[in-house]
């Protein structure tokens, strides 16, 4: 928390603040993905599609229907939740690789649809002039204002998620991850909770998408492709699936890493890839697993 408040005071450079803004947007999605993957044990390779639904709904409603950002933002949440619910019912019956394939397929369908429906979405070249978010006379235009808005939302979403984890429903989700057979025998309606957490994580992605649309003011399908879905999953896995803080750590690392590696020019991809590889080999529980180990070592000393 303190770091969040202190950071913009030290860091005046809008370029760095801009990176922090994106880090916040990604965090909104990865926190939800961590609930879905790390706690409930259900993988999704299609979350870019929910991010896109949020972004396009906000974008289209504010430019073409001239709605103000807030109602558009809420409409995006409702629409994304409905889509996630409908997609979730058949796909969450699947397990493991099959679920991954099904969500991947869904992501691709949305991606193709965004490219194809030119009248509506502007097709491959997208559309712009999406208005900025304004609260009364206060327009969220500077990087600092964006930073404050997105990280305030991250904190709220994080609190919601922590509440959820330490609750009856959170336990039910973890029990599903561990043994669906036993969870059922304990009266846990496994399909209901899987769908609920899927919808919740989709809503988080939709919120991130709406912010993205209003911040960047221009959207095109390129930002919502499979590669982005995979990046999100990678962030969660590298950070440590078993914990939302892990998801945050992973997001921070994978947002900053490419920036640090710029100095290495052509070798950046190589170093980026090897870093991921090394983390996965030596820290199978992700960065958070390492943090936990260090903490228990210090506890023993």
């Amino acid at each position, binding site marked *: 928390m303190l770091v969040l408040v202190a950071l913009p005071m030290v860091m005046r450079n809008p370029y760095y603040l801009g990176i922090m803004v994106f880090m916040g947007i990604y965090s909104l999605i990865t926190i939800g993905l961590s609930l879905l993957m790390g706690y409930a044990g259900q993988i999704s390779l299609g979350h870019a599609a929910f991010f896109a639904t949020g972004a396009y709904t906000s974008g289209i409603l504010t430019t073409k229907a001239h709605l103000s950002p807030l109602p558009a933002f809420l409409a995006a949440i409702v629409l994304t939740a409905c889509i996630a619910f409908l997609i979730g019912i058949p796909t969450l019956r699947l397990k493991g690789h099959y679920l991954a394939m099904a969500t991947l397929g869904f992501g691709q369908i949305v991606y193709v649809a965004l490219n194809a429906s030119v009248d509506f979405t502007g097709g491959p070249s997208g559309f712009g002039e999406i208005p900025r978010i304004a609260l009364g006379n206060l327009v969220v235009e500077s990087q600092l204002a964006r930073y404050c808005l997105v990280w305030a939302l991250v904190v709220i979403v994080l609190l*919601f*998620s922590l*509440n*959820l984890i*330490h*609750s*009856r*429903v*959170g*336990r*039910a989700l*973890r*029990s599903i*991850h*561990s*043994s669906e*057979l*036993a*969870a*059922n*025998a*304990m*009266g*846990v*309606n*496994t399909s209901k*909770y899987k769908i*609920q*957490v899927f919808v*919740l994580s989709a809503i988080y992605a939709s919120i991130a998408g709406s912010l993205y649309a209003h911040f960047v003011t221009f959207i095109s399908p390129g930002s919502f492709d499979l590669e982005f879905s995979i990046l999100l999953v990678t962030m969660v896995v590298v950070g440590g699936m*078993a914990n939302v803080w892990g998801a945050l750590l992973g997001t921070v690392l994978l947002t900053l890493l490419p920036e640090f590696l710029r100095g290495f020019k052509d070798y950046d991809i190589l170093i980026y890839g090897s870093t991921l590889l090394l983390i996965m080999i030596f820290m199978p529980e992700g960065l958070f697993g390492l943090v936990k180990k260090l903490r228990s070592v210090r506890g023993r000393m």
Partner: protein
Amino acid sequence: MEPILEAINLSKRFGGLVAVSDVSLKVETGEIKAIIGPNGAGKTTIFNAITGVDPPTAGEIRFKGQKLNGLKPYEIASQGISRTFQNVELFDNMSVLENVMVGRHPRTFSGLLSAVFHLPKAIAEEKAIRDDAMERLAFVGLSSSAQELASKLPFGQQRVLELARAWATDPELLLLDEPAAGLNSHEATVLADLILKIREKGTTILLVEHDMELVMDISDEIIVLNYGKKIAEGKPEEIQDNQEVIKAYLGEDFKGR
């Protein structure tokens, strides 16, 4: 009185294999009933049919007079039937306490929204769940391991924990699938005492078990299955003297013990 559980002409086929053939059974309220028989006799298949994990091919299952056929496993659990598993199915990634807390699931109500917004109702319920689970751990003698990971417990205690978790659902009928398998004789005695104590608290028990000493000690009634068919039913002493049971399962050693 109406039996708490009644299975009528239960059959289960897996392709060409008949695992259970036309078995009828009744469990009276308050009794401890055992199903015994050689491996592959269809004992676990009957448990899976009752709990909805693997519905029967034919036949009807009634719980307190209500038909269970067609209900999902979680619905059956919520109605008051809980179970343990032959190969312990604990939530390995959760603490001992949390495992028992999941057992409170069907008796509690807080949903996703009240959890997310941390509503007072949910907080109060969470405390009640924790207190109740702690009491049950004390009852089964696992209090000191409450915060440990379930997977870190020695195997004998894992069996006890699984029993505590199932009992935490406040079941009217508890199905125990080989609760003593893999336990040494001391651990088996401790477990038998625990089963008797849980019965005293008002839970009816149906168990599948190979440990004949345990079965003969605690059961009021025994059903013997062989090749998916019921070959005998009666009190422990009657079963011990039944020629067909001795031939199919018990062996001569057990006669007139």
